[in-house]
């Protein structure tokens, strides 16, 4: 698991107040929404804020969100290709 994957999992747990979860509980390819981690629409907004705050990435097209936030893997891929910091 890359540093970015671990860092992302830590941020997700902290930012989304997933108090009863640990980094090892989140699989890289696990769905974050729906049946997987069970995140909701407010969590999605928090993830958008996280991308901008921590990686300088501003999502301009909300429709991208569904693909990007599918799993930790897809977020990490997106960050590696687009990060500004």
């Amino acid at each position, binding site marked *: 698991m890359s540093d970015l994957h671990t860092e992302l999992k830590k941020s997700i747990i902290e930012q*989304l107040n997933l*108090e009863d979860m640990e980094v090892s509980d989140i699989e890289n390819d696990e769905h974050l929404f729906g049946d997987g981690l069970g995140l909701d629409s407010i969590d999605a*907004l928090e993830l958008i804020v996280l991308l901008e705050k921590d990686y300088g990435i501003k999502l301009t097209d909300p429709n991208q969100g569904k693909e990007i936030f599918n799993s930790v893997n897809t977020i990490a891929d997106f960050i590696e290709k687009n990060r500004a910091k």
Partner: protein
Amino acid sequence: MMSKELSIKNSLIIRESRVFRNGELIFEADQGLSTTKFLKKVYNDQKLKYSKFFKMDELSKLGYLGTEILTNGSIEDKETALVFANSASSLETDVAFAQTMEEFPSPSLFVYTLPNIMLGEISIRHQLRSENIFFISEEFDPLLFIDYTTALFQQEKVENVLCGWVNLHNNDYDVFLWKIANSGGMEFNEEELKKLYLPTHE
């Protein structure tokens, strides 16, 4: 007066690091704990498993925990109305949200910048689709609850009402919940409500 026919079935108080159910102390933590830490201790003590708890703001946590403990985790009558009030509205969360606006406004704080969101949380948890209302009044006002609840019963809209005073301001929380029904408890009047609310309150 119609309210004489109504009964206070049971009650709960959370204040000064203590939880009382029907006047009996059921949990006590160290004085001076932050609200967040105290609420987590109550959550753990009650062995609750509801991950959404950790996403709630403190006001909603107070309402959620109070309801869980008062009802033993079950509201059978899904038409139970919720009649709540406080004096500080959602001020604590409003301030926290305002602070995030200096940099990145927090969506998860924003959704709690209304006090009646607490009622939504209770309704989601217990699958209620009932009437609910949240009043803001300067201080605990028994007549406000009596008048509104009595009207609900008079209109035959409900058979059960969960009433609550859930206030949070400057790390000082004051929770008083009680259930009203047509029978089976003490009389629902101003005097009894004050007696239940005041014993440990300075």
